[in-house]
């Protein structure tokens, strides 16, 4: 309870500071929080901007596609490299090297190959979301205590039983963390993709507002996106907490 009070106080203080700072500065460039509700209203009423709902659905669709592919490929590669020791020894350093490259450098090539449409955004979302999922699977496999495996094998567990009844639950808390980071990064990938070059989507609208110096609308959109991402991550954190409590 006290933590919540403090959080609210910090938030209010930040808003007040923001408002005070914005009022002292050029109103075209600096938007205070008091101007956000009006701007948000204008954005939603689509008076000066392209209709929002189509863009929102497009972005959500891209995120869903990107995340699904990121999880599927991340789990697949992760388990392949984690369970096939030789493959793991060959490819894990490569994976680490790729991960070390700032992913955004790939985006121009993705646009070249896949065009300005949703495909390049989805691909970028996959690229960003893929790494945390894969790495969490690899870490999870390494974390399964040897004794648990020995116990199960001594009781006659075959490969599939071992995987299902020992490895998966033992890996769950590590994996769910990776799945959560993967979601956050898939969202980032899609939005950044849209911001860097697109003809539709939430990122495109943000860029559009920014390009026309509609700073209040721009700020309102950013706050909207931030709120949506926070909500999504909140749900993710709830699920993660549950799984962690269950898996001990």
């Amino acid at each position, binding site marked *: 309870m006290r933590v919540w009070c403090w959080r609210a106080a910090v938030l209010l203080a930040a808003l007040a500071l923001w408002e005070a700072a914005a009022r002292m500065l050029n109103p075209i460039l600096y938007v205070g929080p008091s101007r956000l509700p009006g701007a948000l209203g204008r954005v939603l009423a689509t008076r000066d901007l392209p209709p929002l709902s189509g863009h929102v659905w497009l972005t959500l669709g891209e995120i869903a596609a990107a995340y699904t592919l990121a999880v599927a490929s991340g789990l697949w590669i992760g388990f392949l490299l984690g369970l096939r020791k030789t493959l793991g020894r060959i490819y894990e350093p490569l994976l680490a090297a790729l991960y070390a490259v700032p992913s955004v450098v790939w985006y121009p090539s993705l646009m070249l190959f896949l065009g300005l449409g949703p495909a390049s955004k989805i691909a970028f979302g996959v690229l960003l979301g893929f790494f945390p999922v894969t790495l969490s699977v690899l870490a999870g496999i390494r974390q399964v*205590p040897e*004794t*648990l495996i*020995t*116990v*199960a*094998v*001594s*009781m*006659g*567990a075959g490969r599939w*039983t071992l995987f299902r*009844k*020992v490895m998966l*639950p*033992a890996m*769950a808390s590590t994996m769910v963390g990776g799945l959560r980071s993967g979601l956050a990064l898939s969202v980032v990938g899609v939005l950044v993709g849209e911001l860097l070059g697109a003809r539709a989507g939430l990122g495109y609208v943000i860029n559009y507002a920014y390009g026309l110096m509609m700073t209040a609308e721009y700020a309102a959109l950013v706050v909207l996106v931030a709120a949506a991402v926070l909500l999504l991550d909140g749900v993710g954190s709830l699920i993660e907490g549950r799984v962690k409590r*269950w*898996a*001990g």
Partner: protein
Amino acid sequence: MTAPAPISVDGVSKRYVTPSGPVPAVERVSLTVRPREFVSLLGPSGCGKSTVLGMIGGLVRPDSGRILIDGEAVSGPNPKKVALVFQDPGLFPWRTALDNVGFGLELLGVPTARRREIALGLLEPMGLKGFEAKYPRELSGGMRQRVAIARALALDTPILLMDEPFGALDEQTRLLMGEWLVGVRRRTERTIVFVTHSLHEAIALSDRIAVMTARPGRIKDVIEVSLPYPRALDAPEAVDLHAKLWAQVREESLRAMDGQL
């Protein structure tokens, strides 16, 4: 014709391949365990006791020699005949005590209600009544090990292999668990092979004690213990036995330490 021995270890050897070359762990170990007998494998750490136990349990494949269970060669884990308990309880943290005990039965396809019945029946006499729904993290070290033993007993195998099961417990808990194991043994009539480096544990529990040499592990001597249960460790016979065992184990422990220096 007599029935084959429950466990027959016949000249097994095992070497482990390490980055610095092959290390012989066990060399030509032979041992026959009689029905319902409690045999301890006693020796300095690293002498290959656990490897012998792992080979009997079908977890480690010997390089040469063979192991028979009821006259049949061991080719892998055999949960219908052999159950194992390890030093680390190895409980599944996402399962309650009850579900941990039922794990092996689950693998054998025993239905839920029956599993529950068996697990409850095992947990109660182990002083774990009321803890069925607790998770391992909510149990003390001694309780966890009892759950692990119950999980092995649940398989109801004629043979129980225990690899320093009380090694991680404090002295008091260890003594109490030993007394408790004597009771369990009387009730269940199992053949038990028990790995330990504790002389007291070996004397308090065993029908026979097989003393192993420092690495590579061989059987140095097999000693019959004919004292009645419950055993008082301060009885003159027990004290003599302790002195005799200590002389043998001391020699091997010193050799084991030399090997490391």
